[in-house]
């Protein structure tokens, strides 16, 4: 076509060719990058398993671990979307506490049935998110400031709603949200077979969808991972899933809130990775101006991220209140820090546009396992915070360092 075309082409294609020569090394590198945080979580779990003499993975403790972290995970899903959009939400802890208080006033104070009360609480959460979202998206006030204000406002409103006192207990059906387990029609005496069965079904679905995606990639002539790698990866994940469900099955089975959490995780992962909505969110966070000039309604998208965050914060507030079986003025205190830390440990970028749902979930469990393990070891709350802070810094440092290399 043109002389310069031919002269520059070899220089441009030289690098990929060199990379293709050692596919094993490149694959290992990309695998480490993609699953690095998951491997760290496994390492942390093994460390505490050894240090606590096997207490960490005992079925009772594992159940507690899930229950203790469920509300953080639920909020981390929403926070990830907010952070990917290039914003931050500092108000989630306060909103969480406020909605718990509202639920107590409705159900305990006014004797509402738990279903309408739950729906009203979720709607209020959405409205709070919408109110903050309007200021952030349409009036262009930095989200840090809007949600800092929200943090104070809803902390205060929770106090006012409760008159500074704790309210409880909640109706038994509502408590089931956090303290209930899925029913076991098989009536197994030692093992809850329904929980194990559910684990097996989930593992099968995971492998099945993996196979389908693999087939689709091949059909479109896209490069996929080597077959051996695919088999090993799926086998490991399925084994972990089954082992987890198996352990929980020997106690009381899968907690209800774990099912809620798992469904939300899968749904949010799908939305962020496979939907146009998720794609536009990444574009907004990556380059807002380019996104707007591509016809994306960036304001509406940022607004929706905050509405979603409000609903999930409300859900987390309900889960937390149900778990404590009372609404206290101190509920939700400092949750926002754990939630935000979970997202950043999980690889989200503070400048937006980067981050994955599963990363945030893993980040939440890294924090959760450390809380739990250090408590078992009897480390005081003082040094627990120091260690958590250092882990957050280390995780983000490694992430940034890798990218700059």
């Amino acid at each position, binding site marked *: *076509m*043109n*002389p*310069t*075309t031919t*002269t*520059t*082409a070899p*220089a*441009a*294609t030289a*690098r*990929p060719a060199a*990379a293709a020569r050692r596919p094993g090394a490149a694959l290992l590198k990309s695998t480490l990058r993609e699953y690095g945080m998951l491997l760290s979580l496994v390492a942390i779990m093994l460390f505490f398993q050894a240090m606590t003499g096997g207490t960490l993975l005992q079925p009772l403790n594992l159940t507690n671990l899930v229950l203790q972290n469920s509300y953080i995970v639920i909020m981390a899903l929403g926070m990830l979307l907010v952070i990917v959009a290039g914003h931050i939400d500092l108000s989630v802890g306060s909103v969480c506490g406020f909605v718990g208080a509202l639920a107590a006033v409705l159900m305990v104070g006014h004797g509402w049935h738990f279903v309408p009360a739950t729906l009203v609480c979720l709607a209020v959460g959405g409205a709070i998110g919408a109110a903050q979202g309007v200021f952030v998206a349409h009036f262009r006030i930095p989200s840090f400031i809007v949600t800092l204000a929200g943090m104070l406002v809803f902390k205060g409103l929770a106090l006012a709603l409760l008159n500074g006192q704790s309210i409880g207990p909640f109706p038994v059906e509502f408590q089931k949200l956090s303290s209930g387990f899925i029913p076991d029609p098989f009536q197994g005496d030692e093992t809850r077979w329904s929980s194990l069965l559910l684990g097996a079904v989930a593992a099968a679905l995971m492998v099945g969808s993996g196979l389908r*995606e693999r087939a*689709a*990639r091949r*059909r*479109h*002539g*896209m*490069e996929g991972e080597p077959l051996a790698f695919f088999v090993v990866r799926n086998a490991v994940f399925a084994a972990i899933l089954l082992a987890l469900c198996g352990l929980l099955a020997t106690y009381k089975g899968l907690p209800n809130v774990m099912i809620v959490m798992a469904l939300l995780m899968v749904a949010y992962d799908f939305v962020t990775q*496979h*939907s*146009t*909505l998720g*794609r*536009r969110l*990444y*574009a907004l966070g*990556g*380059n807002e*101006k*380019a*996104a*707007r*000039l*591509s*016809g*994306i*309604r960036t304001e509406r998208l940022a607004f929706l991220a905050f509405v979603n965050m409000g609903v999930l914060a409300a859900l987390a507030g309900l889960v937390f209140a149900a778990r404590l079986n009372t609404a206290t003025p101190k509920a939700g205190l400092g949750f926002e820090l754990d939630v935000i830390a979970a997202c950043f440990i999980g690889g989200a970028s503070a400048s937006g*546009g*980067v981050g994955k749902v599963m990363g945030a979930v893993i980040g939440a469990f890294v924090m959760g396992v450390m809380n739990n393990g250090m408590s078992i070891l009897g480390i005081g709350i003082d040094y627990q915070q120091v260690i958590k802070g250092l882990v957050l810094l280390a995780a983000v440092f490694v992430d940034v360092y890798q990218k700059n290399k």
Partner: protein
Amino acid sequence: MNDPILEMRGIGKAFPGVRALDDVNLVVREGEIHALVGENGAGKSTLMKVLSGVYPHPDYEGRIVFRGRECRFGGIADSEREGIIIIHQELALVPLLSIAENIFLGHEQRRAGALPGVIDWHATHARTEALLRKVGLAQSPATRVTDLGVGQQQLVEIAKALAKEVRLLILDEPTASLNETDSDALLALLLDLKAHGITCILISHKLGEIARVADSITVLRDGRTVETLDGRAGPVSEDRIIRGMVGREMADRYPRRTPKIGEAVFEVRDWRVSHPVHAGREVVHGVNLTLHRGEIVGIAGLMGAGRTELAMSLFGRSYGQRFSGRVLKHGREIDVSTVERAVAQGIAYVTEDRKGLGLVLEQSIAFNTTLANLPGVSRHGVIDAGREHAVATEYRRRLATRCSGVDQVVVNLSGGNQQKVVLGKWLFAGPEWLILDEPTRGIDVGAKFEIYQLVAQLADEGRCILVISSEMPELLGLCDRIHVMNEGAFVAEFAAAEASQEKIMRAIVRQAA
């Protein structure tokens, strides 16, 4: 005959995929004004970045000898210590600080005997006043830089250089965004500095200016030195400079095509745009524009003439909200009030700022290719990854984008290939009217030709094309019809056959006067 103050010998510099400089030689004599000319992408700015240490030793080949000593600059600080100061086209002033604060930024005036870090404001203002007198700027040292015009900011930059005991002053297109009066004042200042023994390298596209003030002219082409002309005996003619710059037949640089121009498709009527912040300031005054099927229309003009503002306001009010006028498609008025609606009406705008406004840099080629038309690769809001991959691969092939695959992140691509990704994005949106704003800015010669070919092909497919460019040869080579825009209005219109660089320039200057 003065001795050389600067000798650059055998300078070479390569970027991934592009050799920007190859065996470039530049000799500047003490106390002269040395002009550096060449087309965009010829390597002028790269050469100056090597000289000023932006590309530090040893990231380049060759030797730099300054005042008789070989220099190996590790950064801008090193070259500034030697008295080499570069003033970039994008001025590096802090807008909200005062003139005085800007001039002494980084080497603040300290009070004798005071604690370190305590600024002596009296000395700062006194010295600033003296410097401003020297550059002929009648402003108080306390004026904020944001309140100055571009020409005055340029003078502040020069004052800042003088404050640093400059020996060699490099100006990168200092007059590109100045009007005639400000340009003349600046050139007079350069001659005055020369009389005071300051050597100057002047990068400029305005050959008339160069002929007036330059003592020597070095011509670069495609990253090589072509020749150095001597201007002391008498002014070098512009034609002589152009011959060196172009060095080949113009016809080779643009694809040949026989335009097949059809009926009028889009019409813009009495389009007026106001500045988004300063409500009273109109930046586009009642423009009328008609685009025919298969026609390439160009808009010529200087920077700041209102061309980008015109294009962006037509594309879904992307430039502010204050505008009036009508856009017609096949004679019927259409709604272009949001980007979404403009895209739905078949309009696409390829921005001049591909990194800032065109691409999501940290994402893949595929991600960027489908961004403006996600419904085209999805069903019920779910993206079909396979279809997306196929689409991205197809546009990669069609545009000959050089990359390892469509999963490659665009930040690593060269400018030309990034531009192809932006073009691919808008082609996938299926536009009937494609607006190209500076489509070849900062792109190497080979990629330019490919983009010209593509534009010609798109016109032949029956689309309307509007090209905004500051490179007049590009407009003359590519367009069928050229509008000349100046200070927010269309001031002349030429058919391609009767247009020339001189005619366009005259149209601009006549208005400015």
